[in-house]
């Protein structure tokens, strides 16, 4: 428990120090995306890794957050901060209402229901052209502003996005170590047993689903205001699957794992530009190999390497003494 917080502090310091080493605009831009993906992966991990409930429609909450914030500012001239709050509250309420019927479903059926919801949102975003601009997207979304500080450059956006990402991580770590986190893992393992312990499993599942949706919507708002242009293509089924991949590759139930998964899946497509048309093949192969050799995800892999190193060190010390 203490170790997690220590790790978090080190991680936060590292995050804030990074821009002093990389001045390049392109790389910072990738890191901004990584921050948004980290928020989304951590949010989904709360649902998937802790409570054990699948969602194949999380990109839709991200999209609804982005569009809600985007439309209210670009078309109606609201203050961006206010619209982000409205977007988060609106998506939260929607997820809460949606959660009660669909979280009664389990496993594959829940996957189908969330998938269906994601597709509905995607179609609505595409078809309500007057409101969303349809497939050609929505542009002219203003940047966020604190006083006279306008978040318009990559460096400013980097600090903005990562502050939100770090807060998300800290909240999630707190949640994971609380009695609620324990109850979520209990539901994951056996819902009936958790209920006879007095855990209100139905309500708790809906609550965590809503929390996860709210964080995704906030990430969506940040995305809209930093990119100033959004189109439905970013919020489709593919992205929902990519989010699940980030969580699984990173390690189910590990907050830092979600960061690792998000980082890998953000950077990998950029790195694979060198192999050109074969990128998708290499990408797929890497994912297969990783799931085979790191069944507990990157977080589990890192922990295993750490233990191995330590045991070697102990042996080396023993050998030196002996």
């Amino acid at each position: 428990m203490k170790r997690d917080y220590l790790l978090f502090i080190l991680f936060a310091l590292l995050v804030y120090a990074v821009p002093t080493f990389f001045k390049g605009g392109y790389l910072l831009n990738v890191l901004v995306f990584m921050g948004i993906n980290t928020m989304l992966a951590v949010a989904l991990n709360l649902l998937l890794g802790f409570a054990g409930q699948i969602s194949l429609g999380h990109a839709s909450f991200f999209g609804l957050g982005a569009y809600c914030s985007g439309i209210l500012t670009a078309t109606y001239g609201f203050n961006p901060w206010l619209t982000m709050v409205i977007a988060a509250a609106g998506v939260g309420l929607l997820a809460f209402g949606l959660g009660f019927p669909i979280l009664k479903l389990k496993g594959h059926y829940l996957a189908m229901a969330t998938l269906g919801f994601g597709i509905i949102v995607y179609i609505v975003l595409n078809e309500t052209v007057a409101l969303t601009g349809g497939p050609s997207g929505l542009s002219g979304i203003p940047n966020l502003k604190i006083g006279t500080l306008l978040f318009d450059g990559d460096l400013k956006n980097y600090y903005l996005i990562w502050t939100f990402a770090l807060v998300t991580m800290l909240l999630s770590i707190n949640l994971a170590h609380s009695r609620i986190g324990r109850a979520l893992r209990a539901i994951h393992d056996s819902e009936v047993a958790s209920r006879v312990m007095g855990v209100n499993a139905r309500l708790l599942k809906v609550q965590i689903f809503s929390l996860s949706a709210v964080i995704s919507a906030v990430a969506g708002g940040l995305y809209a205001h930093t990119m100033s242009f959004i189109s439905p293509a970013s919020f489709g089924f593919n992205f929902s699957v990519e989010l699940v991949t980030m969580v699984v590759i990173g390690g189910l139930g590990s907050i830092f794992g979600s960061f690792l998964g998000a980082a890998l899946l953000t950077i990998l497509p950029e790195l694979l530009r060198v192999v050109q048309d074969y990128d998708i093949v290499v990408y797929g192969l890497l994912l297969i190999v990783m799931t085979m050799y790191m069944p507990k995800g990157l977080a589990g892999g890192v922990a295993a390497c750490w233990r191995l190193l330590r045991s070697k060190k102990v042996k080396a010390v023993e050998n030196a003494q002996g």
Partner: protein
Amino acid sequence: MLRLKNINTYYGQVHALRNVSLHLAKGEIVTLIGANGAGKTSLLNTLSAITPARSGEIHFQGEGIGTLPPDRIVELGISHVPEGRQVFKPLSVEDNLELGAYLRYRKKEKIAIRQDLEMIYELFPRLRERRKQMAGTLSGGEQQMLAIGRALMARPKLLLLDEPSMGLAPLVVQEIFRVIENLRREKGTTVLLVEQNAKAALALADRGYVLETGKMILEGVASELLENREVQRAYLGKEKKEIWER
């Protein structure tokens, strides 16, 4: 303390409990015996509201509890040790025990919870040794102890035990039954014990009920049930010939 009247429970179309009535006095150990599929587990699940009754009345300490959700039942002081133990396998032993006190955390009873944790470790020293271990790595007997300890963390007035002897070595069963007896003696916990091991259960209990295909067919003082010829034939493994053609 607990009174069930004309309970009917269904799984979809299947009528699992037919007009079942039962009562427990404070401090009693009562056992419920019966064959596979007789409805023993259904009765406990009905009591803890996992599968609520379709009709009938349940009164606990004079209060109607038939329509309450599971968490309220736990709050009122009924803890259920489910069939097949159902410990949370990927969680540590201590996390499992703390989950048992889930509803009490809300009331800020941290110190009392720590004390109860110590009490459970006194009761089952083996759990203390393995407190950081994942529950899934425990032996069957240890998991049963954990499941009982977890239920006790809610400070129940009434403990529902669903086949604690299932799949355990006879020596371990003895140990677990001894703990149940001690609990009653020291804390006055009332126990409703569901068992297939009718002999051991009747030896421990004050009274017993016999359930057959969803209906209560017999009830009585445990020692009398042990002597009952029908019970001996059906549940104590004595041949029909031995009893009826003597």
